[in-house]
């Protein structure tokens, strides 16, 4: 009897394993998920993971079945294609990379496994909304979108210039469904728009919203054409990065008197992607300043260097958070030799100058000399001045210095010569201060010398010479005939 019971039991167990709903697909999906997704999303899909303290925004918790990035109406689960899109394209500006190494079948298996963490949520398949053809961007459409941006109150979270600096975005209750503080998107930075930066992506986000966040669906409150107009306006706010190695500083008659002078907008710029300071404690794994834009101008007497970056909330140190701060770093000895000081705060043998500005002393800049991160001294000299502005989510700090300071120990900036510089930026709202902040690698700036006269004179002269030669050769050959 016992043996029969045991046999039946064994058969039932075997059969149930055979009929498990996810089947063989799941074992491959689970293996891939555990290998390549669980480090961030957790082995149980609950985002309790190795990286949860090292990622901003945090990895998605799959157990609630709530997905931010969907093509389906609010409340519906995402389609398989939606989840596949995230796996394939990644989420720019987060630690979710595009996974292009897997085959389509592998991604399919991963998606199937991800869905098992919240089976109830996927009982009824979501039906994607129709995304038509985007209208052509025109000044009128952008103006209409801008009007809607205010009318639909987008501005309250995303700010007038779309830098994600709206008032509401900084209230204590601005959190997602998991209780984590979140930030509205900065539309001027297309490289970190999680849901994609194409006009269709923006339209989709406006239409269906982002589940689990204060970004709701505008499908019912805005007409289709209005959502397109809004998307076209938001797209127009995006800035393209211009990366490079060296910033060319042009000569000008004078330097604009204010940091927010529109004249600065037409000055050539270069963008510096920022990393975190990870070499020394305290380290910064989650810097929020991802990009710093630099520009420069010089006159016969003066050099001006502008640093510009998005900061959603300015902190001057009075609200219990550290003051926002930025410094430029120059080697004390500028040589054409390849060896530069260590890129962050130099070293004993190769000191660097820091032009250190803090929002707590707005009009002041402290000149320092650093011989490594633990050896920083304030200098008594006052060669450098700053003018600053903070407008609608955008910081601008303009450093000015005489071309020649006369100081023996000062570095010289000679037209035509490349001077290394690097930048560190600290966002007080993100708890950054001291050496915990965003850093850039070494770049160069070069004051572009005026073009030598020979460039205008020699080429036409040579052309004329060759022409004369050709004519005379032709004549002499003809006369011989």
């Amino acid at each position, binding site marked *: 009897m016992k043996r029969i019971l045991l046999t039946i039991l064994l058969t039932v167990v075997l059969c149930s394993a055979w009929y498990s709903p996810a089947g063989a697909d799941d074992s491959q999906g689970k293996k891939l998920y555990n*290998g*390549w997704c669980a*480090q*961030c999303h957790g082995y149980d899909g609950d985002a309790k*993971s*190795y*990286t949860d303290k*090292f990622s901003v925004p945090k990895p998605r918790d799959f157990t609630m079945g709530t997905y931010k990035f969907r093509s389906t109406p609010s409340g519906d689960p995402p389609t398989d294609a939606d989840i596949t899109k995230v796996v394939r394209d990644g989420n720019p*500006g*987060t*630690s*979710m*990379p595009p*996974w292009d*190494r897997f085959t389509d079948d592998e991604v399919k298996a991963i998606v199937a496994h991800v869905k098992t963490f919240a089976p109830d949520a996927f009982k009824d398949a979501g039906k994607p909304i129709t995304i038509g053809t985007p209208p052509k961007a025109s000044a009128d459409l952008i103006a209409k979108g801008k009007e809607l941006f205010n009318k639909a109150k987008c501005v309250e979270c995303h700010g007038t210039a779309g830098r994600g600096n709206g008032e509401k975005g900084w209230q204590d209750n601005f959190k997602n469904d998991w209780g984590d503080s979140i930030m509205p998107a900065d539309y001027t930075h297309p490289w970190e728009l999680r849901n994609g930066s194409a006009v269709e992506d923006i339209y989709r986000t406006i239409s269906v919203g982002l589940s689990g966040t204060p970004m709701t669906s505008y499908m019912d409150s805005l007409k289709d054409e209005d959502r397109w107009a809004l998307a076209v306006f938001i797209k127009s706010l995006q800035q393209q990065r211009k990366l490079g*190695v*060296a910033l060319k500083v042009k000569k000008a008659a004078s330097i604009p008197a204010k940091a927010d002078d529109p004249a600065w907008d037409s000055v050539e710029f270069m963008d510096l*992607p*920022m*990393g*975190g300071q*990870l*070499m020394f*404690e305290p380290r910064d*794994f989650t*810097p929020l300043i991802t990009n710093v834009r630099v520009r420069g101008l010089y006159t016969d007497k003066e050099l001006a260097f502008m640093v510009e970056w998005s900061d959603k909330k300015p902190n001057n140190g009075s609200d219990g958070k550290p003051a926002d701060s930025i410094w430029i770093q120059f080697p004390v000895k500028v040589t*054409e030799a*390849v060896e*530069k000081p*260590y*890129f962050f705060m130099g070293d004993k043998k190769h000191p660097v100058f820091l032009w250190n500005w803090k929002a707590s002393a707005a009009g002041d800049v402290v000149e320092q000399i650093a011989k490594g991160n633990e050896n920083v001294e304030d200098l008594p000299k006052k060669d450098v001045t700053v003018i600053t502005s903070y407008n609608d989510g955008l910081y601008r700090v303009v450093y000015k210095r005489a071309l020649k300071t006369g100081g023996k120990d000062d570095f010289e900036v000679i037209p*035509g010569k*490349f001077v290394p510089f690097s930048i560190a930026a600290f966002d007080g709202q993100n708890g950054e201060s001291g050496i915990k902040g*965003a*850093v*850039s*690698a*070494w770049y*160069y700036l*070069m004051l572009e*010398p005026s*073009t*030598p006269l*020979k*460039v205008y004179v*020699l*080429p*036409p002269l*040579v*052309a004329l*010479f*060759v*022409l004369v030669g*050709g*004519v005379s*050769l*032709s004549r002499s*050959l*003809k006369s011989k*005939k």
Partner: protein
Amino acid sequence: MLKIYPIIAAIGLLITVVSVFKKSPFFNFLGLLTLIYGLLKSAGLFMPPFPGQVITMYMAMSVFSLFIYFSIQEKTFEAFLEPMRAVLADDNKLILRILIVFIAIPVFAGYITYEKVKPNYEPPVSARIVHPEPVSSIEFRGKPITIIGLENPLRKDTANFEKNFEAGKKIYYQNCFYCHGDDLDGRGHLSQGYNPVPLPFRGTDTIAQLPESFVFWRVAKGWRGLPSGSGPWNSSMPSFEDFLTEDEIWQVIIFIYEATGNKPRS
């Protein structure tokens, strides 16, 4: 872009063949030069392209030797010069004369001069040695460790291999992934900010070429431990002896080899 060069070579070959039939040494000369140039540039399709200077040198040699070849016999040289003479002096070639001799060549000479005299400011390029000569021994938190011949002690502990792999995975994602990438491909979300950019562990040109002892040394000492001559690279690689124990470094090394399917060189 590179694909245009085989076409240039083919055109050169065509001109050469046609000119042989038409008995025109001048066009033969031009055709051969075009063919050689096209071939030299096409090499870039199969191997690292020749540097511009090398191409200039080869072309100069070709011009020189072909000129000797075509000028060595009086009759051939006469035929060689004929088209040039015709363009310069023939009355019924006036339009061609104006186009080539009076316009194209002077403009070209002016352009070449402009390219030569215009100021060209290039920032200094820094060279670096990617795999420096390994040191023979290091001091790890005050304890001397011989690097040459050192093996990963955790590889012998086969019973705990899974445990060490998982521990290594955790260490990787708490210390390395922001730079070296979720997928160990060197494209972590902070990687763009640094120069040199973080190394990928996938592929055959980094850890696959190294013994584990080398990787241990690089992880333990980071940028600060680079031998003089190959440093400091401005690397943002920390000295992980500040943050990890010896065993933890061996664990993470196991993870990066296993996860990328690479085998350490012995």
